[in-house]
């Protein structure tokens, strides 16, 4: 098949593509908790911190947790310094971003990745954190975790499979996920590295140094609270930017709390996406449990997965390397 041939050719051309996988955690390791974007009051992160400790990790909270400067958890300088400190602190083995919001794009170009490149650690989060995932993997080929953040632990939800998938992922367990098939799926089976995140952020990164590279990759996307017409517009931006042409596979996560204009757009968000990608023959699955809702499995950006889209089930299996 076309995409398989591409994968092989790519590997022959670049036999030494190396992915850097940060060391997995063990009991006793320290997780740093920061807010590089929006405000997170300590109370709302309290459960997450307690649970991380129950899991056997130490926690170190940055100054931006519980901080506030208008909309942000601190000034650009404060958020940058807090994040930089955690990046450069060798005792911190992973950085959990307590929440998204908006703000990483204002500091990303000032972050110094020098120490991080030689001593990589897991960066954990989603939504606005998509910028970090995309930047780190596109520029440095370092893997990271697209995963639930602090608020997902609240109200007893830390017991659910989605938050638990973060625990297992941090410990280095190979993760296998599955979900029901959707009528719009394109069947097939493919292996490729996983990249992706929030659609709005991926669109906004296009044309910048942090933009996502999707060739021969399995791309996953999700979004929340957007207008349906704007999902259409952003999908077309990705398409016009060549980001959808040479995928190995495509995972459509949750597109939740969608809004419509006064004059209805006339299509569901699933129909919008179906129409944008109709000409591609790679495997596609809809409604995969990665989203701004509870259903949000931890995905390791940069790692190899096997995506199998079958008639009734979809499976995403983490592979070696």
């Amino acid at each position, binding site marked *: 098949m076309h995409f398989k041939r591409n994968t092989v050719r790519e590997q022959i051309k670049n036999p030494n593509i190396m992915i850097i996988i940060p060391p997995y955690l063990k009991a006793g390791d320290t997780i740093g908790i920061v807010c590089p974007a929006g405000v997170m009051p300590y109370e709302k992160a309290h459960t997450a911190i307690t649970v991380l400790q129950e899991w056997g990790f130490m926690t170190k909270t940055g100054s931006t947790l519980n901080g506030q400067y208008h*909309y942000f958890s601190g000034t650009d300088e404060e958020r940058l310094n807090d994040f930089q400190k955690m990046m450069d602190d060798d005792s911190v083995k992973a950085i959990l971003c307590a929440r998204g*919001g908006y703000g990483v794009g204002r500091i990303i170009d000032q972050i110094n990745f020098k120490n991080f490149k030689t001593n990589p650690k897991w960066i954990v989060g989603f939504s606005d954190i998509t910028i970090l995932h995309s930047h780190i993997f596109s520029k440095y080929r370092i893997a990271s975790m697209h995963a639930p953040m602090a608020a997902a632990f609240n109200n007893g939800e830390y017991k659910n499979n989605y938050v638990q998938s973060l625990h297992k992922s941090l410990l280095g367990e190979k993760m296998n996920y599955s979900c029901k098939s959707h009528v719009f799926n394109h069947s097939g089976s493919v292996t490729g590295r996983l990249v992706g995140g929030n659609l709005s952020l991926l669109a*906004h990164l*296009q044309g910048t140094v942090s933009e996502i590279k999707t060739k021969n990759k399995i791309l996953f996307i999700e979004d929340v609270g957007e207008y349906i*017409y704007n999902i259409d517009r952003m999908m077309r*931006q990705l398409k*016009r930017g060549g980001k959808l042409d040479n995928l190995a596979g495509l995972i459509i996560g949750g597109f939740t709390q969608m809004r419509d204009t006064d004059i*209805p757009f006339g299509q569901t968000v699933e129909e919008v996406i179906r129409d944008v990608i109709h000409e591609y023959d790679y495997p596609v699955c809809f409604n995969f449990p990665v989203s701004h809702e509870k259903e949000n499995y931890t995905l390791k950006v940069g790692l190899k997965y096997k995506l199998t889209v079958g008639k009734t089930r979809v499976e995403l299996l983490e592979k070696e390397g």
Partner: protein
Amino acid sequence: MNRKHFISSIVPLGVSISPVSQLIKKAGLKTGELEILSPKIPKYLQPGATIGITCPSGYISVEDIQPAILKLQSWGFASTVGKTIGARDFSFAGDDELRTLDLQQMLDDDGIDAILFARGGYGAVRIIDRLDFTKFIKNPKWLVGFSDATVFHAHLNRNFGIASIHSKMCNSFPEDWTKAEPSQIDSIDSIRKCLVGDQMEYTAIPNENNRTGKAEGILIGGNLSILQNLAGTQSDINTAGKILFVEEVEEYLYNVDRMLWNLNRSGKLEKLQGLILGGFTKLKPDDPGEEFGRTIYEMVTRIVKDCAYPVCFDFPVGHQKNNYALKCGMKHKLSVNLNGCILKETR
């Protein structure tokens, strides 16, 4: 070094066009890369000229374009109404096929001297790659509109260096002119002036946040969301050496900030000659507890603090009554001082 940057760095400001094109030929650049320096200007309109009205984006009724038709008539122009006017596919003025065909027919019809878009909305980006500009490039005509039509201004500038008019559209022509504000009437009349070839000049009131200075360059820009949506595509604008204008409507402040940062991160702000901010109107209220806490002025000032070019706020362009017709792709002089701002087309 990027070839485009190379050219803009070796060509001093104010050099006339012909030696520059020789220079570019010597440098072996492709035609698509000439747009910075040699704008192609469509023919200005003579009395009796025909203006095609089409809608590549959102739905509009036949009634809603009547005030525009009457006005065009009073200017001495005939109009041809395309099939998309009154057509409807939910929010669109007909499906992608119809909107493509309607605009394509007008691009190719030698009997049509300019194309006025009926309204914006959403839809241009769905058809831009289906359009065939082969005939249009040989015999360019003015494309007139704004908002979603920013797609066309950017695409024409980036790919062909063809000038176009950023202005109000049919849906802004009032039914009752006696009730229209002078600035609205004036803005609509500026479309006529652009079309007949007047040398344009605009003024903006002083703003304490302005950064004073003088600039000269090709004018380019439009709606911020649309410029953002074109990033990384074949319609993406090159801004080096140019005067950029942006406007926005009905957005969250945080998202305006994000889009401005992205312009910066994609290198579109650092090599400007000048920056013009139009209206940022009907901005959406912040979510409670998530107040963004800064103004457009503060956002822009923060982002361009390391650049030296003039910056003008509150320029009369945007989703508002005073939205003057601007010639995208044409050379302008910008002068920002304590008395306000003057933007003047240069020849």
